[in-house]
């Protein structure tokens, strides 16, 4: 019932060719071209309204590009169930009457098929995913009772239960305290060892530089894609952030780039 197009191993896990998205004539993304290798970790950075979320949604096949083409292992994303999408915490109704295990089981339903019910194998998958994410103790907890870091881990566990090969995360670090951020980044590191390809939208350039293989610098157009040392150059950052960039003593003050405004917003919505 549910489509799943076979992967062509000779094709890159993700390939974008001249992808543009316009909302009512206004460009959200312009002419984006790049491809990813299997098992890579890429951070998408850029100012608010740069199109980070739009880019993730186009890759997930949730939003269709106005122009250009997205392919996953050689075919369009809408035929694949191997793409895990972790939403912004502020987009989730945390009072919804579901337990942690219920949410993680949702990742399995494409595999269950129409009218199929979870079998022992599926519950084993859920249990294993929760153990990987360090949430085994919180199996039957209502989701609103989790901390911010645990909420993000739950969605990662869901993507694991889905057997996602490409994991897309929208601002997973926003609003988390430092230990929770470190824990999440360590978990992502473990996923890379399993061959999962990861794309994360983030505000934090220092973490992007420290924990990710490549950085995609975005402001509607793709300004740069490469290792941190190549991408985080003053002229490129100026192009992406414009006047919001501060340069102190010839060194970039990376912390100054964090947009405080949206952090506040997601705090409000998360409760």
């Amino acid at each position, binding site marked *: 019932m*549910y*489509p*799943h197009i076979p992967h062509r191993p000779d094709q890159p896990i993700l390939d974008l060719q001249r992808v543009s998205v316009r909302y009512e004539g206004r460009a959200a993304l312009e002419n984006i071209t790049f491809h990813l290798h299997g098992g890579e970790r890429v951070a998408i950075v850029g100012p608010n309204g740069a199109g980070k979320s739009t880019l993730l*949604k186009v890759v*997930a*096949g*949730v939003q269709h590009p106005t122009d250009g083409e997205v392919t996953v292992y050689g075919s369009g994303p*809408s*035929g*694949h*169930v191997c*793409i*895990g*999408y972790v*939403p912004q915490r502020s*987009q*989730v*109704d945390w009072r*919804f*009457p*579901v*337990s942690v295990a*219920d*949410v993680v*089981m*949702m*990742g399995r*339903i*494409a595999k*269950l098929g*129409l*009218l199929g*019910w*979870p079998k022992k194998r599926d519950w084993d998958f859920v249990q294993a995913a929760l153990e990987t994410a360090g949430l085994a103790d919180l199996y039957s907890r*209502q989701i609103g009772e989790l901390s911010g870091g645990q909420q993000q881990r739950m969605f990662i566990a*869901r993507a694991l239960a*889905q057997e996602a090969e490409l994991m897309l995360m929208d601002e997973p670090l926003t609003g988390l305290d430092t230990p929770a951020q470190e824990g999440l980044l360590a978990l992502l590191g473990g996923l890379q060892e399993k061959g999962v390809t990861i794309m994360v939208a983030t505000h934090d350039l220092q973490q992007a530089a420290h924990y990710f293989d490549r950085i995609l610098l975005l402001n509607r157009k793709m300004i740069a894609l490469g290792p941190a040392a190549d991408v985080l150059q003053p002229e490129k950052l100026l192009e992406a952030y414009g006047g919001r960039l501060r340069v102190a003593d010839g060194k970039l003050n990376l912390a100054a780039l964090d947009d405080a405004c949206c952090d506040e917003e997601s705090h409000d919505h998360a409760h």
Partner: protein
Amino acid sequence: MLVATKNLMITLIDWLVKPLSYPFMQRGLIAAVLVGVVCAVVGTYVVLRGMAFFGDALAHTILPGVAVGYIISGGAREPLFWWALGTAVLASLGIGAIIKNARIKEDTAIGIIFAGMFALGIAIISTVRSYAVDLSHFLFGDVLGVTTQSLVWMGIFGGLVLVFIVAFYKEFLTLSFDPVLAVTLRLPVGVLNNLLLVLIAVTVAVAMQTVGVALMVAMLVTPAATAYLLTKRLPSMMLISAVIAALSGVVGLYVSYYAGITSGSAIVLTATLVFVVVFLERQGWPRRKKI
């Protein structure tokens, strides 16, 4: 003393059993429980997805269809179920399409259609001379006027709604909790959304005679909202919602019988009272005295 207790028991049993000697009360009780359970289970999705206004509008929108059926069938009640069903399904898909494509805000679009169709329904019914009584039955329900034949159709269609809710449990749950996940799992999101709208429409048709179009939304949201306050899992929310709705139906009908108030409002008031009590209890009220 013993005799007094015994007499009290006999009076109480008599009080409970006496209304049941009337066949219309038996049918009314079955209808009230049936409608309560179906509305309550479907209503969990109405509450969780924030569709209360849609449910209210849909119920009112079927009035012109029911009115046309009423005129064509010359006042007979049984064909009205089919007119209600047909209109409700068409209206739900129509409103669904308008929500998706409208250039104005969703609630505004629903408001315009809802009021326009409701006015049309009243206009049609008002062409009939003795319209006042019949109109009030359509608006507020007439559970004691339910015939055995209607009851059978209500049971079949209400049962079908429950079968679909169970069969597509995991799909509706996922779609309601995280629509983006439903898309990335490549579920047939459009089909499932429309299926849910149709299930709400069938529920409205099944419930029309019991609570009427004006009070319908209470049956869809009040028991489900009460259950929402009491539980943390969807299956138990459905179960608790159904139990509250069924009890409200029975209690409401007895109140209606002895207090002489209309059945639809008695049922809805009972459900509302349960909600208020649970709400206050959850707010920690009445406050316990500190020692």
